[in-house]
């Protein structure tokens, strides 16, 4: 006779446990980490290129670059002044806590205040895999279209901040900001949102300020100790 055994265990619980360990490691070393997610071409690397030179005035910055292949993004982050580590996922569509753990082992964590993790360009899979970072930030871009929150609600639900990039293109494309932001508001009420252009620099000051304050108030800065 068959026996029924209740389980009720999250299928990604192994990843979650490892993500918790990563978090403990980051906290022990005084590192504040953000998980930067977006579709390919939204401007994750461009945002990092803009952000690193600004942040290194105040803190020590490292970047973990997740990509399917090549180290182009890590080179760009490195050129911008960050300590950079590349993870090639070899075809995987997202970073997971195991890859994050390996990348952390390659970084001098004691010498880092802010760690930016650039996830693989994808609006679906990265949302399900916690890495152990403190905040998740989504980069959207206007050419992707204003229907993205409606098509990828899972991603928009779980993030702590949203950067809308390429606003300099608004006069040339059809992007309904009201419709876009309404979708975001329903999925993630009160979400901190920045409208920026990484090309012209417009709107980036607010993002820099938010990041500085968020890292600073996390009480992890080495420099202040």
């Amino acid at each position: 006779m068959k026996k029924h055994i209740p389980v009720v265990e999250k299928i990604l619980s192994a990843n979650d446990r490892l993500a918790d360990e990563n978090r403990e490691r980051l906290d022990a070393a005084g590192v504040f980490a953000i998980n930067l997610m977006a579709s390919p071409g939204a401007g994750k690397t461009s945002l990092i290129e803009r952000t690193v030179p600004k942040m290194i005035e105040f803190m020590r910055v490292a970047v973990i670059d997740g990509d399917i292949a090549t180290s182009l993004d890590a080179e760009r982050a490195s050129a911008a002044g960050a300590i950079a580590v590349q993870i090639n996922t070899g075809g995987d569509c997202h970073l997971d806590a195991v890859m994050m753990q390996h990348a952390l082992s390659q970084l001098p964590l004691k010498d880092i205040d802010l760690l930016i993790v650039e996830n693989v360009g994808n609006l679906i899979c990265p949302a399900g895999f916690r890495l152990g970072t403190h905040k998740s930030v989504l980069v959207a871009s206007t050419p992707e279209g204003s229907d993205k929150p409606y098509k990828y609600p899972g991603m928009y639900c779980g993030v702590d901040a949203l950067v809308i990039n390429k606003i300099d293109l608004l006069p040339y494309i059809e992007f309904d900001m009201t419709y876009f932001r309404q979708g975001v508001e329903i999925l993630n009420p009160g979400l901190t949102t920045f409208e920026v252009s990484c090309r012209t620099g417009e709107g980036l000051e607010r993002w820099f300020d938010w990041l500085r304050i968020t890292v600073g108030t996390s009480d992890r800065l080495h420099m202040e100790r």
Partner: protein
Amino acid sequence: MHELAITQSILEIAVRHAEAAHARQITDLYIVVGELSSMIDDSVQFYWDIVSQNTVAEGAKLHFQRIPAEMCCSNCSHRYALKPDQFACPTCGSTASVLMAGQEFYLAAIEVQPSEEMAT
């Protein structure tokens, strides 16, 4: 595509619970999948047949329970299904809604054949 890793994770959880119950064979797995979780049933089934080979779960049947994404309107408490063309509350038009369901992704239960000595 990350269904292989997910399938291995399902197997690991199921086998652990079956062993704890001294089961001889896992016959059924009940998996709850929220609409917003990025998982494709067919791919999991495909990998399952491969990864479960030579385990106590070989040949076990996978049952997927899909949970629709459901919103609750903060204004009028109406509950409605989240669809790409229906984000705002269909009753009062409010956009102040809270996501109530749709992000689930867990193994709810397994069914096993007890081992010989456990069988009554």
